[in-house]
């Protein structure tokens, strides 16, 4: 403190130790190789996207074709993610800042979240293909938009909640120092929202992959659309019953998820640690080998040295207080809001017209189907809970085990379960399990990981002193579970249930209506109703089933999950 600082180093972005690390040339070679590969890949992508419209591309099932297909799918997923991010920032910010608009925007988000991808498909595909009748780009955009609908909603919720819950003192400081709207967003609200947004982004990417097979290969009535990609590859492999190709596709998907996790998400999560607000110690130091490598690269150091002073050099114009800026923002918001209401009104009117032919008995039938699917969702959740709670506790209570298993579960959870369905369906076929029950198993494959993941997280968060108490008083195992483990894990369990049930509803459209070796199996349920209506292009029935699904999901969320969540927050939180 006594030494005067003569020079001040620029604050490093990647962490404080960056300046002292030895540089390694082979990393630079690797980075250049990756960049060259990307340039080549993007050129190919551009060719593919701007090519002449080919609704049904011939899929090559040889493993040699897989890297290119995987790259196409990855590109679609990333473009969709960028769209999701843009949508999230715009929509979430608007909802957080305009109280009146949020009264419509947030319930709307709730409804949109409850509609599975097939609900958006006909409209998006028909509109985008009609918009670009001669080019592949319309179809590509449709596919990206479908992936987008699987990604975006929880990111938007997370960002909205973060902006709304910026700590009062930080908000006041920003006001006091006359931050403009933009500065407030950039220096306060975005940093505060970053960590939540990143965790939700990881989940969102997984959500986007879930329907990859549908997003790349879809049937609309007599029209069959297929784009080159991993999802189409799998679809064709399943249709032809080519087991070898299916295994290759699963391996490629797994490889892609692991690469994304290690080279994109993990470094970002580690970097984002600087946005932590709570100061309670160094909560489990996070590391990423890939980030460490990047830090040791000459190229990255050079790029950063060039970028940062440039970004700083531009002086902001002197700011005058602008009393009109607030009024202008309010006017813009009102205008956009009016537009939104008009669009929603038009949409509602169209929907009513579309639903007109639906008779009372149709509705009753759909409600019955919805009840059947709800029952399956709940049974899947219960079964998922029964095995994951003991296993999750065992893993979470052992620091060594949880350090190894937790990242693995995270990766497994983001693997799109529908790619494993063919194998399970074959198994059901052989053992004679009817699809009515079998679909529960299919749902479970996709969703149980969310529960497991949360139970592990909850178990690791049990404070040491409470665990010591249970040892000091020599509680028996069952007594410990009842008095400590279950209550402590409960809030996490609720989060897991909500995610898992949402996933199960989503999965129902592929679990209750399956095609295998050319044959189609269907069982009584709302998911099957949605799928068959979409496949036959019966839009009235599709709309009606989606309305029933949205109503059941939203009502169940409000009545059951939200109450459980409040109970968990109120009674069982360990945060206070």
């Amino acid at each position: 403190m006594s030494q005067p600082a003569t020079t001040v180093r620029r604050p490093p972005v990647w962490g404080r130790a960056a300046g002292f690390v030895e540089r390694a040339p082979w990393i630079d070679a690797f980075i250049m190789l990756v960049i060259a590969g990307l340039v080549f890949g993007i050129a190919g992508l551009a060719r593919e996207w701007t090519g002449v419209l080919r609704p049904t591309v011939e899929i090559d099932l040889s493993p040699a074709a897989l890297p290119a297909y995987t790259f196409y799918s990855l590109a679609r997923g990333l473009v969709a993610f960028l769209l999701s991010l843009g949508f999230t920032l715009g929509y979430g910010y608007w909802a957080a800042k305009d109280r009146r608009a949020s009264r419509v925007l947030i319930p709307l988000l709730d409804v949109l979240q409850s509609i599975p991808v097939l609900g958006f498909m006909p409209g998006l595909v028909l509109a985008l293909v009609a918009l670009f009748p001669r080019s592949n780009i319309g179809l590509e955009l449709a596919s990206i938009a479908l992936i987008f609908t699987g990604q975006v909603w929880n990111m938007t919720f997370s960002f909205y909640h973060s902006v709304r819950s910026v700590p009062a003192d930080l908000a006041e400081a920003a006001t006091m120092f006359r931050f403009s709207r933009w500065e407030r967003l950039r220096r306060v609200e975005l940093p505060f929202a970053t960590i939540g947004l990143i965790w939700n982004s990881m989940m969102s990417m997984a959500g986007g992959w879930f329907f990859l097979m549908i997003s790349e290969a879809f049937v609309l009535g007599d029209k069959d659309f297929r784009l080159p990609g991993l999802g189409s590859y799998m679809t064709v492999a399943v249709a032809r019953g080519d087991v070898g190709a299916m295994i290759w596709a699963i391996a490629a998907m797994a490889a892609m998820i692991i690469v994304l996790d290690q080279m994109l998400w993990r470094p970002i999560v580690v970097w984002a640690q600087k946005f932590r607000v709570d100061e309670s110690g160094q909560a489990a130091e996070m590391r990423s080998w890939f980030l460490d490598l990047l830090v040791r690269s000459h190229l990255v150091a050079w790029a950063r040295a060039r970028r940062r002073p440039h970004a700083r050099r531009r002086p902001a114009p002197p700011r005058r207080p602008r009393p009109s800026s607030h009024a202008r923002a309010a006017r813009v918001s009102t205008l956009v809001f009016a537009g939104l209401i008009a669009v929603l009104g038009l949409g509602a009117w169209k929907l009513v017209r579309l639903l007109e032919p639906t008779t009372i008995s149709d509705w009753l039938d759909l409600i019955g189907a919805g009840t059947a699917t709800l029952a399956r969702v709940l049974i899947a959740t219960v079964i998922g809970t029964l095995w994951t709670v003991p296993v999750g506790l065992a893993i979470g209570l052992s620091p060594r085990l949880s350090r190894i298993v937790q990242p693995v579960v995270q990766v497994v959870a983001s693997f799109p379960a529908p790619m494993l369905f063919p194998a399970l369906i074959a198994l059901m076929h052989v053992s004679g399990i009817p699809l009515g029950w079998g679909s529960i198993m299919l749902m479970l494959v996709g969703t149980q990981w969310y529960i497991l993941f949360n139970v592990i997280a909850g178990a690791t968060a049990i404070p040491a002193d409470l665990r010591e108490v249970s040892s000091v008083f020599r509680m028996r195992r069952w007594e410990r579970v009842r008095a400590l483990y279950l209550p402590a894990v409960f809030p996490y369990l609720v989060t897991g249930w909500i995610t898992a049930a949402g996933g199960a509803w989503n999965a129902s459209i592929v679990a209750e209506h399956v095609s295998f070796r050319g044959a189609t199996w269907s069982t009584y349920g709302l998911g099957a109703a949605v799928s068959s209506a979409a496949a036959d292009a019966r839009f009235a029935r599709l709309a009606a089933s989606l309305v029933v699904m949205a109503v059941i999901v939203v009502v169940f969320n409000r009545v059951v999950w939200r109450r459980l969540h409040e109970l968990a927050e109120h009674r069982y939180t360990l945060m206070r």
Partner: protein
Amino acid sequence: MTEALCEVRHVAQQFPQPRGPALRVLEDVSLAIHPGEVVALLGPSGCGKSTLLRILAGLATPTAGDVRYHDQPLRGINPGVGFVFQSFALFPWMTVLENLEAALRPLGAPAAELRARALRVISMVGLTGFEEAYPRELSGGMKQRVGIARALSLDPEMLFMDEPFGQVDALTAEGLRAQVLDIWSEAETNPSSIVMVSHDIQEVVNMADRIVVFGTKPGHIRTIVENTLPRPRDDRSSGFARLVDKIHDIITGSEMPDTPARPGPSFEPLPSASASDIVNLVEYLAARGGRDDVFQIASDTDREFGELIAVVNAAELLELVDTPHRMVVLAPLGRRFAEADEPERKALWRRQLLRLGLFRRVAEAIARQPSRRVDADLVLETIIMALPQERYEQTFETFVNWARYGDLFAYDETARTIAAQ
């Protein structure tokens, strides 16, 4: 007198409550801040002193009255103010230097000048060497140095501090106070004046030229005490002690009246103090010959005087103590209470509670119900109707706490019902 830097005239502030009438936080407050002075706003928590500071800074808009800066109506944030927050309010994702630059950037100066100004204030408050530390790496005292540096970086005419030393230990606070006064006493440079909120009487007498003493319910200026003690001030001088004493008298005169509210037919406001604090006060007095000075107790027990006065008033309402002048004296009932065993204490406590209007009313309501229970909402409504000036949530909390200690009523939080024991 010189022209005021900023002032409020007949300012009032109210906050709407979900139920019942709006809560009056400030009423008819007028105060001017002049160049070159240190003004302290002193009072127990909830007296509106922080609200007044925020109104002067332009962070809050009063429901009535004028706010003026250099004799012009104030619109938006007060341009002459640098603000220091009790909770530091540093952006955790920025280094010390970045925190300062973020505050300076809205001025629109070139980057090199921003850097130079930031570095200047960093050395001014003794943070040299910590430029690249993140707030979470700093101790509370160092964090508040950053908070002070950030406020000073704007070269403000006035430095506003909201309980700036409340979250640091006593030794650190001492150092920070001296440093702030050093910076202020450079007569030719800003800040010209300091306005600080505090509940620490010693601190206020040490720092301020004028001490604005607040009264509660609703918050108002009770009196303004001029402090002409020469600087630097010696905490052990007789003049210092006399001034501290004078302020003690002012506060007890208003907050601890010699003729207190006694249980009667009407509703008495419940001072917000927990039963265990009241019992602990009785034990404390019993162990010290049955009497002590209220400020002595506050400093011995490391409590904010406002909090302690609430405990004393609560004990007095229950007839456990008397408060002649500044002294707290164990009453005969208090002495019996101190000597009694647990069951007898509870019985005494119950009897005293039932002499209070609110408890009696609820007991009668419960007796009328065949189920021997009433809705919590009924009690809340009763509080809102009878005591519109109180924060009803707080009163309700105190009610439940006292009733539980005396084993008088049980409160079921989930069902929101109050039942007889």
